[in-house]
């Protein structure tokens, strides 16, 4: 199976690249790379669905808002994302809209939470629509 994401060195925070055959797949894998800094998504039972809709004036802002949802759901709903499914990105009049379904669990005590992602940044962000689609993100941890 093709590599989904990879962590790169960053002095103070965490940098990763996520890949996909499509933009949607790369966004889903960016979600996996983000949650893998906090818990092991393969261990989290997929007991609950959290639909998500975010808009962005460009793809970069869309990505920041999308990954920001993961932090928000964890901090305010104790919801641990295991996967981002059925992800679609569509063009709108003023940018882009993303829809996805986060699958995961809201019983954090069952899992080892070993890291904290505090914010998604634009620092060194790249969205390369080549083949494969490559997304690079630095998150504040």
């Amino acid at each position, binding site marked *: 199976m093709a590599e989904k994401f990879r962590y790169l060195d960053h002095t*103070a925070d965490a940098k990763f690249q996520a890949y996909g055959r499509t933009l949607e797949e790369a966004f889903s894998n960016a979600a996996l790379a983000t949650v893998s800094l906090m818990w092991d998504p393969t261990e989290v039972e997929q007991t609950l669905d959290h639909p998500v809709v975010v808009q962005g004036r460009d793809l970069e802002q869309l990505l920041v808002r999308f990954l920001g949802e993961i932090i928000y759901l*964890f901090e305010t709903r104790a919801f641990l994302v295991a996967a981002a499914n059925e992800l679609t990105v569509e063009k709108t009049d003023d940018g882009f809209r993303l829809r996805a379904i986060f699958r995961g669990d809201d019983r*954090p005590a069952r899992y080892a939470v*070993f890291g904290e992602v505090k914010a998604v940044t634009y*620092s060194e962000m790249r969205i390369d629509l080549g083949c494969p689609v490559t997304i690079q993100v630095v998150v504040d941890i």
Partner: protein
Amino acid sequence: MELQRKTDFIWEIPKQGEMKVPATIYASSRLLESVRNDLTLQQARNVACLPGIQRMSYVMPDAHQGYGFPIGGVAAFDMDEGIISPGGVGYDINCGVRLLRTDFAEQDIAARRKELLTEIFKEVPAGVGKGGITRLSRNVLRDILTRGAEWAVENGYGTRDDLLMTEEYGRMADGDPAYVSDRALERGIPQLGTLGAGNHFLEIQKVSHIFDKDLAGIFGISAVGQVMVMIHCGSRGLGHQVASDYIELMENKLGTKGLPDRELIHAPIRSPLGQQYYRSMCAAVNYAFANRQLIAHWVRDVFAKVMGSAKGMRQVYDVCHNVAKIEKHMIAGKTREVCIHRKGATRSFGPGRMEIPEAYRAKGQPVIIPGSMGTASYLLVGTAEAEELSFSSTAHGAGRVMSRHEALRRFRGEQIRDELQKKGIELKSTSWKGVAEEASAAYKDVDEVVRVSHEVGIGRLVARVVPVGVMKG
């Protein structure tokens, strides 16, 4: 990048291209090496291009690459032509440090050290996803965002003396929750009174060296071996959300064209959006002051329980090191109001500034510089020269040199605990992975950082403290 050596510790990037002012870096040649290896200098140069910047873009001795501004970046902007930038404050608004002194000597707590740390670990919620005090209502949270540590003291957490010994007296009056998003409030509700994770810590320390006996005495330190407590944390998810929200609002309103880095997005200070960010940032500052106030109170409770008394546990001071403020500074021979950004930098006002508590005013402001986990921390004093050298600012810590990823490859948390134990330092943490990431070898040498601060004159050495017990989130 072209860098001119001015003295052993002062380096300058001359004005060039779009730069409106030069950039000055305070560093020894050793510290400069690590700064040259990342984007710090480029980021200092980008800051020098921002509208309304005054005199100089400054880089403190512990600087490293940040988002937009470097960590350790200081810049002041004209109130009419200048800007305010969330990237100039950082995501963890009012990340800061509080230092308490005690009447205990090292030997008084020697037998109870482990118990003290264990009890503190029970009382102070830390780590990822750990909740704080009983669920706050939104109205109470709004009150906290308006009144900061004052709210905490009025509700029985600590004393009015604590407020006197806090930067801004524990409250920025411009904090207005009306400009803080629902999402930020939601993130703030479960986290008040929590230490968090990452580089945040709580330490029981002992004084290991006194550089200035007179000043140390004024700050409450009388002897080597005296027990101290240091608390390092910030505004948690609430502050992060305020930063994210206003980066997005500014992008949507002002666009991102022409920015060398999207994290440098900014708004004119006096514009509605600039003012909304400022008031929202002040509200997050207040949250962080309340947060440290609660934690300090619980630490005193533990000392009272374990040691029989918390008498004498007075607050030396509490400093912010991620903040933007409106301050008066001397620029081209005139006193002017500017919007100063200190991102990973500590205010270091010299004698006479009215912002300093009366008890310290004749001497200068205490500056607290935390080291990395298990290493020394320092108490410094602000200087008169700092006004001209750095708009009264100095370093804020050790500053990372190694990625967390690399640290994880090289160290194991349990091994670090054992090594600290050999040095007589107890360690408690919610995560061994977190301990490995924060290994002191991943940081610059804090001794070197404060030496540069002292030699340059932007903050002078008063006392050195070392940990005897470390609690990490």
